[in-house]
């Protein structure tokens, strides 16, 4: 056990920090600017770092990827775009795709020439994702897709979608699903923004009416989609863990500054013993998340995959984020609810990924999403209970089998 960074890693961190100081844009106003920033990051070798070199990646170590993400968080750098391409679709193609698919898609994901979304959830298939009903029917030379997807992040700008669809309604539900790469720019695909409680629309609904998917765009084999989806849901865990905590820490410092300025009962809130207890607890929780991120990184560096352990990380940080934001709201009072007209000292200086000014209100509302998306807290607890602790599965009607 040695939690010091190696000299190489320290040097690499310095190099990334220096690069960011010179190249980081102050503020990004629209998608074109974000794509340009994305492109610079890619050309500097800071995107898709873990991907194979022959498809445009760097073959870098997990630690180097984590350092780049961490330094970007530290500097408050804008995020790159094409998050679902980099985080989900790309890694899926790297692991499960054909050579032709890798050559065709991977580099354009890295350069953001082609934007991706993930077509998994449906109105009646949320936590029970395997209940999805979108159908892909074999029409000889292609598949014909009909159905509806929801909670599609980045759907409005997507050129391609990583799709889960039912190809065999006659077998038990987990076995009749296939994974596809679908062209989003076709007449049969209708994308409508979904307005969330934040007032913004990071997510979309996608309606597919006789949409077409070419045969060569099937990923893996027919009926193997569920297994592929299980591995891809794990990709996003781990690599960004350190950066996430660094972002929390930057928000925390801004909160402490606000707590020095704001007063309660005639004295700064930061001197109020009750608030101090809560601030102390949140900082301890935040640091414990950082230690956990270091443990995950240790595993990744050794070539091990956290597997179901990723559920512990996800459950822990997403629940933490809600507690953190609830404390922020408590300290900031009505300032914490302002979405416009926020005095500069109570603004939240973080990148919002949609280009707006950061606000505590947005971050607070957004914290409600983390315990729902990518497997709700309840689903994570099921995974932990069954796969890590080995507790018996519950008796469930759909495990008995039968057609869909």
């Amino acid at each position, binding site marked *: 056990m040695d*939690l010091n960074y190696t000299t190489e890693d320290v040097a690499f961190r310095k190099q990334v920090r220096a690069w960011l100081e010179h190249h980081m844009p102050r503020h990004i106003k629209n998608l074109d600017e974000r794509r340009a920033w994305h492109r610079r990051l890619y050309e500097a070798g800071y995107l898709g770092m873990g991907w194979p070199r022959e498809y445009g990646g760097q073959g870098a170590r997990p*630690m180097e990827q984590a350092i780049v993400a961490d330094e970007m968080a530290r500097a408050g750098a804008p995020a790159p775009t094409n998050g679902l391409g980099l985080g989900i679709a790309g890694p899926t193609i790297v692991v499960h795709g054909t050579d032709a698919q890798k050559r065709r898609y991977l580099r354009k994901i890295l350069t953001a020439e082609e934007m991706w979304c993930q077509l998994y959830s449906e109105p009646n298939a949320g936590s029970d994702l395997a209940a999805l009903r979108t159908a892909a029917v074999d029409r000889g030379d292609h598949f014909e897709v009909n159905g509806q997807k929801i909670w599609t992040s980045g759907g409005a700008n997507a050129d391609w979608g990583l799709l889960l669809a039912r190809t065999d309604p006659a077998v038990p539900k987990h076995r009749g699903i296939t994974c596809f790469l679908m062209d989003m720019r076709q007449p049969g695909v209708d994308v409508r923004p979904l307005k969330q409680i934040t007032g913004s629309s990071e997510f979309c609904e996608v309606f597919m009416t006789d949409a077409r998917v070419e045969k060569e765009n099937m990923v893996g084999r027919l009926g193997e989609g569920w297994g592929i989806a299980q591995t891809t849901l794990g990709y996003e865990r781990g690599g960004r863990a350190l950066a996430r905590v660094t972002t929390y820490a930057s928000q925390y410092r801004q909160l402490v500054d606000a707590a020095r300025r704001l007063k309660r009962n005639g004295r700064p809130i930061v001197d109020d013993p009750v608030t101090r*207890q809560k601030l102390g607890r949140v900082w301890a929780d935040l640091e414990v998340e950082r230690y956990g991120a270091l443990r995950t990184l240790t595993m990744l560096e050794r070539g091990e995959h956290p597997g179901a352990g990723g559920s512990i990380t996800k459950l822990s940080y997403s629940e933490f984020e809600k507690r953190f934001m609830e404390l922020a709201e408590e300290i900031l009072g009505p300032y914490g609810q302002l979405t416009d007209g926020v005095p500069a000292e109570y603004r939240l200086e973080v990148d919002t990924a949609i280009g707006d000014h950061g606000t505590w209100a947005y971050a607070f509302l957004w914290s409600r999403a983390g315990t729902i998306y990518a497997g709700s807290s309840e689903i994570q607890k099921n995974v932990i209970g069954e796969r890590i602790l080995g507790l018996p599965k519950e008796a469930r009607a759909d495990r008995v089998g039968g057609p869909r």
Partner: protein
Amino acid sequence: MNFSFSEDQVLLRNSVRAALDEQCPPARVRAMMDDERGYDEALWGEMAKLGWLGLPFPEEQGGAGLGLVELALVLEEMGRAAYPGPYFASVVLGGLGLMLGGSPAQKEKWLPAIASGQARASAALLEDGLDWDPAATTATATRAGHGWRLTGIKRFVPWAHVADVVLVPARAPEGLCLFLVDPREAGVTLAPMVGIDLGNRWSELRLTDAPVPADALVGPAGSAGPVMDGLLRRAAVGASAEMLGAARRCLDMSVGYAKVREQFGQLIGSFQAIRHRCAEMLVEVENSHSAVYYAAWALTAGAEDAAGAASICKSYVSESARKVCGDAIQVHGGIGFTWEYDLHLYFKRAKSLEPLYGDAAHHRELIVRGITAAR
């Protein structure tokens, strides 16, 4: 950066676990509850032979020269076994206290004796006001001839009834001092304080003009504050390691029980109400593991965030362990509330350590002081 145990560390943990499984099973723990001294001399001798009693001491003083990560591994296993005995008092409170502040002669006299098991040590860090801030010490030291006379009341002194030497803070005109006190000497009286954890014995230690020689003073007069700060941090992390072990044992027992206990015609572990509780317990245990070993490493390595890490560790684990051990009773239902079932041994171990060396509230205040002072 490597946050995993080395091969040697894994071997150490396995050998400690095997030895305690064999020589300190719950039946033995229970037998010690009724023992006047409260611990097993044979196991104590075995621990000396295995090198546990001198684990963190320098090799030239009979120790193994290992760090706090290794010490935490041993303590975690002791929590897992609800080990009854003066290990923590002797090695952590007495031993590390001497290592931090003792003169070469004091170390030479005591560390080899502690390591060999011949002497047992402790420290009296708490008074009636329960304030962990060393500056709050009210016991007094006055010069008398070549030596000193000490007066004051110390509470919750672990294993003082079997100790040969106790580190006692007292206030002298020069400032805060630390003295080595033989609790069997004149002017010192002990009275048992019996808590819910019968494997963790406490005494009230009363000093009434107790004479101590000049060489009982640890370090220069007035210099005890930083030594006590360092000792309290190490004790907080060590106690957290023990609480972590108790919590992990409670989780293991709960999961085991949920796999065999049937109600409504099903194993209770198949109910989400039970399974989700167990999952939450695992999250708390894994986070506690992170907090304990990060802090243990940081203190050993002298990392700049070491003091903060110790407070983060104790504040986090104090509440987590209480929650996990309490949830374990809930998962077990009625059987978990019986004296006969072993669960309460671990529940009480975690609970008994929760307020010691600073509870969660104490350490949260230290954390915030650190953050707000950093500007």
